[in-house]
C-alpha cells in the first residue's frame, strides 16, 4: 500500500522535501513507516524523540495501523500563539 507523508515546518528542510510517498506492506504500522523514513531521511532520525505524528488530522502513535491511501504528517513540537 502507498502512504503519503507530509513534513511540516523545519522538518521539510531536514527531509529535503515537503512530501513523499512510501510503499509499505498491508496493515503496516506508523512505527514501520518511521523506520522506512529514517532510513531514507536520516536527518529526521535525530529528532525522533520530539517528533509528532498525525494520520489525517488525528495524532497517532507508533502502534497505529495504517490503511492504503492514508496521509501521514510528521512535525516538530507546535508553537502557536
Amino acid at each position, binding site marked *: 500500500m502507498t502512504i503519503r507523508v507530509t513534513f511540516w515546518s523545519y522538518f521539510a528542510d531536514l527531509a529535503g522535501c515537503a512530501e513523499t510517498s512510501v510503499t509499505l506492506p498491508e496493515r503496516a504500522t506508523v512505527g514501520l513507516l518511521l523506520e522506512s523514513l529514517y532510513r531514507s531521511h536520516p536527518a529526521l532520525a535525530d529528532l525522533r524523540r520530539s517528533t509528532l505524528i498525525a494520520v489525517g488530522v488525528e*495524532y497517532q502513535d507508533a502502534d497505529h495501523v495504517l490503511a492504503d491511501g492514508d496521509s501521514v504528517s510528521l512535525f516538530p513540537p*507546535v508553537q502557536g500563539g
Partner: protein
Amino acid sequence: MTRSLSITVDPIAEPALVSGRTLSPGMGAAVSFAGVVRGLEGSDPITALEYSCFVPMAEHQFHLLFDRLAERGTVESVRLVHRIGRVAVGEASLWVEVVSPHRAEAFQACQWLIDEMKRVVPIWKKPLRD
C-alpha cells in the same frame, strides 16, 4: 456553547471583535487575550514572525479543545483568531475571548485553551530579521 474560529492571514481587528461581543443576561465575565509578536527572540532582535499551519488539522484540534470547554458547562462562548503568514513585531498573532458567568472560570478557561493550543494545534513560527 457558541464558538468562532478563524485562522487567517489578515490582521486581527481587535476593536471590531470586541464590538461584536454578545453576552446573555446571565454572563458577568468576558476575558480576552491578545498575543503580540515581541521584538526579541531570546536576546536577538527580530522584525516579524512567519507562522505556518497545517490548517485542516489545526481547525480540527481547535474544535476538539472547544468541545472540552463546552463539556465544562460554564462557558457561554469562545472566539479565537490565529493569524498565520508574516506577522510584524507589535502586531497580534492570537486573539482569544471566553465569556462565562464569573471571572474565575473565564480566566481559567482562557488560560487552559491557550496552554492546550500550544501543546496540540499544529502551528509553527519562524523568526524573521529582514
